[in-house]
């Protein structure tokens, strides 16, 4: 399925999606599950993250910090003073309210990191509530790759604010490699400076319930966004990715590509991609794609692309969404070269994900993810029948 601009204009609906961002908890009442932004999420499984249980639990931070970047603790008030993005839902508002300050990752103007900043965050127990509050800031012309990698277990809600200065370049990777019992609610608000170039990659493989909300907006014309994602839902897992790209400035670009795999009874993935093209956003270009590969019965993949267009003066806008099983033609082609059906399937799924993984461009992270995906596949898709060469 693909929708061109014409269809997109016709199918545009009134903006109903985006609660007004605010620190004030009163602006984020307890959801009932009927709200647009909550309708897919099994609220019962959030276990305390909507109530706001006080907790001073922390994830363990283990960071490899390249020269040029500083990591420091700042107060909630200081975070607000930096002009961070505001919480857009209750869990992120709670994360800020209960987080007792934020961690600031700061890359000053004109600074180019020689290697990626890799932060490993790990949780010790699924019974521990952890409120997280992170601000990532890149100054004018700065250039950085930042990787957050989550593992272990926790009940974690985090508000992450990413402020990208004019002409800066940021690659932001977040890996959710949690244990099976973790709950992770994350909101990532990104402001893209004038002529800045931002690439993001969200990969979610682990956890009982992971819900990541990414909100993107531009601080001036010429900004470019590439938002990538990969997720793999196993039996009983709920993995939800929502993105909202607010084309609020002219001559900005966005391209979003998310790919998901599902296998096992009760595996549930949700992908919601909202793109708003405001009146001021003349000459913009946007495209979003979501593809889901359903590997077994009993899975459910929700995929909801949505374009709201308030000006016709744009270069291009569109979306594509497809959810399906294996492509018979691909399997036939590979099998016709002597490869068994199981091995052909493995090759196709591997290819499906490898294609997006190579967008990360951080070799060690790419490798790690490929291995993690292989491990997921080994659970259901049969292991190779032949030994592959180096």
């Amino acid at each position, binding site marked *: 399925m693909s929708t061109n601009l014409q269809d997109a204009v016709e199918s545009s609906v009134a903006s109903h999606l985006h609660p007004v961002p605010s620190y004030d908890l009163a602006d984020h009442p307890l959801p009932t599950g009927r709200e647009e932004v909550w309708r897919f999420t099994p609220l019962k499984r959030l276990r305390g993250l909507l109530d706001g249980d006080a907790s001073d639990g922390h994830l363990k931070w283990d960071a490899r910090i390249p020269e040029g970047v500083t990591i420091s603790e700042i107060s909630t008030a200081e975070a607000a003073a930096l002009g961070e993005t505001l919480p857009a839902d209750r869990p992120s508002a709670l994360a800020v309210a209960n987080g007792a300050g934020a961690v600031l990752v700061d890359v000053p103007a004109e600074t180019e990191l020689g290697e990626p900043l890799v932060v490993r965050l790990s949780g010790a127990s699924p019974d521990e509530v952890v409120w997280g509050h992170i601000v990532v800031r890149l100054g004018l012309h700065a250039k950085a790759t930042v990787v957050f990698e989550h593992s272990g277990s926790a009940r974690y809600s985090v508000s992450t604010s990413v402020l990208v200065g004019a002409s800066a370049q940021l690659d932001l990777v977040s890996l959710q490699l949690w244990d099976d019992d973790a709950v992770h609610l994350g909101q990532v608000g990104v402001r893209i400076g004038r002529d800045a170039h931002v690439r993001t990659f969200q990969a979610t493989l682990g956890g009982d319930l992971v819900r990541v909300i990414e909100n993107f907006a531009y601080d001036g014309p010429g900004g470019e966004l590439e938002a990538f994602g990969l997720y793999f839902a196993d039996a009983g897992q709920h993995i939800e990715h929502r993105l909202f790209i607010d084309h609020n400035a002219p001559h900005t670009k966005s391209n979003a590509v998310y790919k998901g795999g599902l296998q096992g009874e009760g595996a549930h993935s949700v992908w919601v991609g909202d793109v708003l093209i405001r009146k001021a956003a003349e000459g913009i270009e946007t495209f979003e794609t979501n593809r889901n590969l359903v590997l077994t019965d009993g899975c459910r993949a929700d995929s909801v692309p949505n374009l709201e267009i308030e000006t016709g003066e744009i270069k291009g806008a569109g979306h594509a969404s497809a959810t399906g099983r294996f492509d018979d033609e691909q399997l*036939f*082609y590979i*099998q016709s*070269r*002597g490869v068994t059906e199981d091995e052909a399937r493995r*090759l196709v799924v591997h*290819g499906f994900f*490898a294609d997006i993984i190579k967008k990360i461009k951080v070799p060690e992270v790419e490798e790690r993810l490929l291995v993690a995906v292989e491990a997921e596949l080994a659970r259901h898709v049969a292991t190779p*029948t032949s*030994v592959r060469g180096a």
Partner: protein
Amino acid sequence: MATLEIKDLHVAVDTEDGQKPILRGVDLAVRAGETHAIMGPNGSGKSTLAYSIAGHPKYTIISGTVTLNGVDVLTMSVDERARAGLFLAMQYPVEVPGVSVSNFLRTAKTALDGEAPKLRTWVKDVNDAMDKVSMDREFAQRNVNEGFSGGEKKRHEIMQLELLNPKFAILDETDSGLDIDALKVVAEGVNRFRGQGDRGVLLITHYTRILRYIQPDYVHVFVNGRIAEQGGPELAEQLEAEGYDKYQRISA
């Protein structure tokens, strides 16, 4: 002598409104060392025959047999057929996103041989095979058929033919959409394959052009799901001059 033998083959294609009969009794025997050309109008069932032999799941065999050296092919899975020595160069080769040509070829070779090829000789073999069909070596790192031009896809099929070296090859319109240089490259590849002496080729084509480079031993006229006429290479020239009109009238 090794033979690919098709007897009274009736095949239907699965459509949304049920099965639609396409092949209506095909008889054909290709012995090792022979090249057979099949020519026929659009929609007559040529690709259906090729796919049925290769085992595409979209087609249902209603009756008849296909044997390779006397062994039933129709009960084999698609990959078993390939391992038994059959190869199909497809009219529309399929794109496989995220799977590099190099990985694809190595996986196929490993499956066919039952063991992984030796790394050093393998890289050289792949490079040689690509050079032979004038494919830039950078194609090894590209995804299978993704973004290949029509002609590049066909050359990629012939490259696989040479590298995987089956016993019998079915080439479904491998010559279509090729410029004259690519046509020669493809023909040379097929001729090298034939030159081994004990290989069989079933060449499906619309044009006598390729038959000037690949001399067939037999030419079959395929109309309305069966072979309406057969003869030597001169039949191809006759078809070029007269078209399929007279056969279509007979079979209607």
